[in-house]
Structure formats: structure tokens, C-alpha cells
């Protein structure tokens, strides 16, 4: 789940109609800022395949293209749940030819098992990166407001009306993502994370509505800059994005000290995967690219660059020490125990979630 810029890409979506591809041309559609700077160039030199590389900033944008048909892409990077899951159900991917993929056995068996529950026999998906969503906060400012015994690793920082009211002037933000936020609200109120019943959605929405007036904005990527600049104090965000904010603040040397916390009540973990659309013009080249990314020496520098953990066990020791030992990126076991996979609502529940979400956000 990555981000950048914004969500007004429908125009590009309409403009980017399918293009016929030459034999050795590979069309990749990936998240923005989600690969090392030299990966594509190295791949082109190693294989002679020419890569056309496009980016998106929201799963929904990629999905709309896929659903419209003949997207012209050979390889996409959806988030496993719920996106890749429902694309497999709708028959939008082609099965992988595993004979053409070397190094599959390096992939983390825990992640592969988890993916197998949405993709039987791991037939369609190869995991790329994974991370969690939790709380990013400005350490000094939050301590200044809440005192030394401030709660650090709890959803109360985002959902307890009393705490949020105190932090409001400093800036508290939530993601603009109904599943992420309402599931977090479910966890906060002590319900099952995947309680998407009518009453469950209503109760979760009420948790958010109770703090809504003190929430600066709802956005899934803007908090990166704002945390780094000290414009906001607490953000609901993705692990890697918060860590990017921390690093940007450190680079700018502006005295802003950012930390990432996985809430002790529990938090969500997500996995982004690689998949080949059923109508991909050049599946051969897509397999070659997946194979290339399965090499530990290729994927490790990507993790160094994007600050997300990859799913390749053999690559971990090649990852930069600082990143490998960062509990926000490679969480220790006691943190991992608190993480659960993002539950998948049904189509009907998704629509109910989204409409309830629009209502909460706009205060209707």
C-alpha cells in the first residue's frame, strides 16, 4: 500500500489506452516510489528487454484500469487483500509458469502460507514487499502536550476523544481509507477487526465521528511531508511512509523527531504482490522480471531504497544493517504477534463501508 501525489488520476486512466507491445517490450504498472532507482536499468541491461514503467498512487486506480480490460500491462503490483484476492476470484490473472521462476523457495513460508489462503497453491501471486499500518508521531511535541507518561503504542492517540482534543491544535490525521480506519476503530473498541456487520460498521463509524472535529485531515500520503516538517503531531500511517518522514526530517536537520509505533491492541499488516493480468501481451517478459526480482542481490537494495521489508528470506542479510535492525521495518517477534492480515469485506460490505466513511468524513 503506497501512495504519493494524489488521486486525480482518472484522466490519465482514460488517456492511457492499451498499446500494442513489441516482442521484447515489458509494460510494468507499479506504485510510485516503490523500486530502487537503478533496478529497471539493470534489468534492461541484463536481459535486453525494454521496460515501459508506469506508476499509480492508489490500488483503486490500477484496479479501474484492470477492470476496464486490455490495460496493456504485463505485470502489476496490487495489495494482496482485498485487491489481488478479488481479482483472482474474477479471473483477471493468469497462473504463473513456475518452471520459469527461479528462487521461489527463498520466499518467506509464513507469507506464502498466508497468501495461499487467497490464492490456492500460490498459483498467481509472488509477494513483493510488506509492512504494517500504525501510528507515526512527533515524539517531542506529543510529550510536551501529554506529559512524560504519554501513551505511545495505542490507538487511543487517534481515537480517544480526550487525548485527540489535546493534540488537535498540533495536528492529528487519519488515512483516507475506510477499511484501514474502520478496522483500526474496531480494534480500538475491542470488537473483532473484521466486524463488518451493519452494527459493526455503525459502531466503528461512531468511534471516528467522536474525534472527527479534532482530525486535521483524512489522507493516505500527505502526512509524510507534514510529519517531517513538524506541521502535524500524530498520523495514522503506513510503516515505511512514517519512516520516510523520519528520515526526511533527519536529513533536513530541522529538529523534528518522528517515531513509528505498532499499537499494542493490534494492527494490520499488508502484503503487496506481483501478478500477471490474464490479457497481458507479454507474459514471457513478465516472468523474466519476476525472476529478476527473486534474486536476493536485486531485491535487497530495493528494500534499502523504499524502507519496506521484502518477502525474500535469503535477501535479509544483504539488506543494509540499519534497515534490517529497524523494528518498524523488520519487526521483532513480539511485535509481529500483534499484527494481523487486513480482513476482506464482501462487495456489499465494501460499499456500505465506503458510504459510511464518506458520511463520517463530511460530518453528515
Amino acid at each position, binding site marked *: 500500500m503506497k501512495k504519493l501525489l*494524489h*488521486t*486525480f488520476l*482518472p484522466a490519465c486512466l482514460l488517456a492511457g489506452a492499451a498499446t500494442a507491445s513489441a516482442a521484447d517490450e515489458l509494460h510494468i504498472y507499479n506504485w510510485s516510489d516503490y523500486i530502487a532507482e537503478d533496478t529497471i536499468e539493470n534489468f534492461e541491461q541484463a536481459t535486453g528487454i525494454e521496460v515501459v514503467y508506469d506508476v499509480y498512487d*492508489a490500488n*483503486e*486506480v490500477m*484496479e*479501474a484500469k*484492470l*477492470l*476496464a*480490460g486490455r490495460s496493456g500491462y504485463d505485470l502489476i503490483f496490487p495489495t494482496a487483500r482485498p485487491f489481488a484476492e*478479488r481479482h483472482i*476470484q*474474477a479471473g*483477471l490473472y493468469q497462473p504463473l509458469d513456475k518452471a520459469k521462476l527461479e528462487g521461489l523457495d527463498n520466499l518467506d513460508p509464513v507469507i506464502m502460507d498466508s497468501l495461499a489462503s487467497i490464492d490456492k497453491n500460490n498459483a498467481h501471486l509472488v509477494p513483493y514487499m510488506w509492512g504494517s499500518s500504525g501510528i507515526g508521531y512527533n515524539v517531542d511535541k506529543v510529550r510536551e502536550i501529554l506529559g512524560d507518561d504519554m501513551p505511545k503504542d495505542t490507538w487511543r492517540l487517534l481515537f480517544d476523544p480526550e487525548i485527540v482534543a489535546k493534540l488537535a491544535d498540533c*495536528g492529528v490525521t487519519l488515512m483516507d481509507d*475506510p477499511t484501514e480506519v474502520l478496522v483500526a476503530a474496531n480494534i480500538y473498541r475491542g470488537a473483532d477487526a473484521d466486524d463488518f456487520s451493519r452494527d459493526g460498521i455503525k459502531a466503528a463509524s461512531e468511534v471516528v465521528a467522536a474525534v*472527527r472535529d479534532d*482530525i*486535521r*485531515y*483524512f489522507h493516505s500520503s500527505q502526512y509524510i511531508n507534514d510529519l517531517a*516538517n*513538524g*506541521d502535524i503531531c500524530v498520523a495514522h500511517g503506513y510503516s515505511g511512509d512514517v519512516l520516510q518522514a523520519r528520515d526526511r526530517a533527519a536529513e533536513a536537520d530541522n529538529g523534528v523527531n518522528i517515531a513509528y509505533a505498532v499499537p499494542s491492541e493490534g494492527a494490520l499488516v499488508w502484503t503487496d504482490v506481483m501478478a500477471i493480468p490474464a490479457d497481458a501481451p507479454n507474459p514471457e517478459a513478465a516472468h523474466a522480471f519476476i525472476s529478476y526480482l527473486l534474486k536476493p542481490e536485486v531485491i535487497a537494495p530495493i528494500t534499502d531504497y523504499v524502507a519496506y521489508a521484502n518477502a525474500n528470506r535469503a535477501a535479509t542479510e544483504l539488506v543494509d544493517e540499519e534497515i534490517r535492525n529497524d523494528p518498524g521495518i523488520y519487526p521483532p517477534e513480539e511485535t509481529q504477534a500483534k499484527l494481523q492480515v487486513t480482513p476482506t469485506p464482501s*462487495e456489499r460490505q*465494501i*460499499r456500505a463501508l*465506503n*458510504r459510511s466513511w*464518506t*458520511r463520517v*468524513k*463530511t*460530518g*453528515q
Partner: protein
Amino acid sequence: MKPTSARPSTRHLIIAVPWFWLALFFLLPFLFVLKISLSEPTLAQPPYMDLIREIEDGFVTLVINFSNYQLLLEDSLYLSALWGSLKVAAISTLFCLLIGYPMAYAIARSPLHWRLPLLMLIILPFWTSFLIRIYAWIGILKANGLLNNLLMGLGLIDSPLAIMHTPLAVYIGVVYNYLPFVVLPLYATLIRLDLTLLEAAADLGCRPWKQFLLITLPLSMPGVIAGAMLVFIPVMGEFVIPDLLGGPDTLMLGKLMWTEFFSNKDWPLASSLAALLLVVLILPFVLLRHFERRSEEGNP
């Protein structure tokens, strides 16, 4: 004056071009939208059902589903969004006119050698990408942005004004962006105004403000209406400006359509919203034509 009549065949040919254009780029896409709006969402490629479905070999049935329109009317969310868009469009249009009219008037009345440079000042910002200009406003309006830093530096305020992510920011962005669409048609009307009428009025003892109200303003109404339309219609469907500058409580149709299309994958509902928007936009046009005809008949 009677229009000089061309030979019928040539005339038909000339009229056929815009009709063809409208049919190809307006009617046809709209029929697609209408078709999807009468369908049901499904998880497939494309994500909506065909209206004509085969029930058993060779037998087909036509399924038309009005439930999307029903939901639009029943769920207060959509009517609130329509109201929100109408409000933003109306207030923005009003402010564009209030600011744009004096600007156009000043340019039209300035010495000849000043007019081109002044018009260029209106047009020049358009040479920068629309997105860049809106992002620039983020830099100006945000909590530690240009405006707040300036005001705090001058000691006028103690803590930053919250402008970003409020309706005010949306109005600033919209009025800024659409102002030229008001100034240019108004300028075109005002520059053609017969100044001798004002002289005559002055000779007969009419005061300047009365000259403006009784002569200049009524004669510039075509420019006012054209400018208002050029602002009102696109702002109704505006998505980017409220998304970038607005806060969470900015509820407008454009954003809601995005949610239905992308987050809900509910193309049929998104399409029925688009159809509703079109009806709302065409209605004032039809009314305007109606009144224009009546006034033409009124004073032949």
C-alpha cells in the same frame, strides 16, 4: 437584419459538422454512461452486467435496473453532495463576477497601449500547469506557509490561521483558477460598448453610477452570463481543487463520483451520478434559452 441565406445544400453541410461533432463526442458517450447507469455492478471485466442477457440458449432478456437512481434520491448523501456542489459553484461564480467585472472594466477603459499587457497578465498564469498552480496555493495557505509566516512576521496574528483544508481554501482556489473565464468574455463585451451612449446620458444629466446601472451593466449582460456559465458548469463537477485544498467536510459530486467509481467499483452508480449532474447542468441552459426567446419576442 436578415441573414444572407446560403444555398440549402451548403447550409446543411455546414450545420452537419457541429451536429456530427456533438453526436460523436457528446451524445454517444452520454448514451454509454446512460447504459451503464441502468446496469448492476458485478465483479468482472468490465465491472457491470450487460443490459441484454441470455437466459437460456438463444433466449435473451433485457434487464433495466433503476435502483441506482432510486438510491441517489433516497440516500441523503447524494442530494447533500449535489447541494454542496451547487453551493460552491454558485458562491464561486458570484465572487468571480464581483472580482472579474471591475478587472474587465478597468482593462476595457485603459489606454490602448496598456490593454494588451494587462490581458497578458490575466492569461499568462495559464501557461503554467493547472496542478502546479494549485500546489502553489498549498504552499501559500498551509499552516507554516507564505501567508501565515508573513502575517506572523508582521505581528498581525499570533498563531497560524487555519485556511488550508477549509471551504475557504476551496473558494480561493476555485475563484483564482476560474477568474480569467469571467474576465475575458466580460472584456470582449465591454470593449464593444458604444461609449456615445454614456456621453449622451451624461449630457442629459445622468450621474455616473446611474449610467453604469442603466447602461453599462444591462449592455454587458451577455458577457456576465457567458462568464457565469463558464465558471458555474465546470465547478459543479470540479474534483481536483476541493480534493487538494478542501477539508474532509467538503462534500461535492466530483469526489463522490470518484469514490463510487474507484473505491466501490460501482460504475453503474457513478454513471447515474454523472447523468444526474448533466440534467442539473442542462436545466439552467434550457431555462436561459426559454427566457432569451421570450425577451426576443417581447422586444422585436
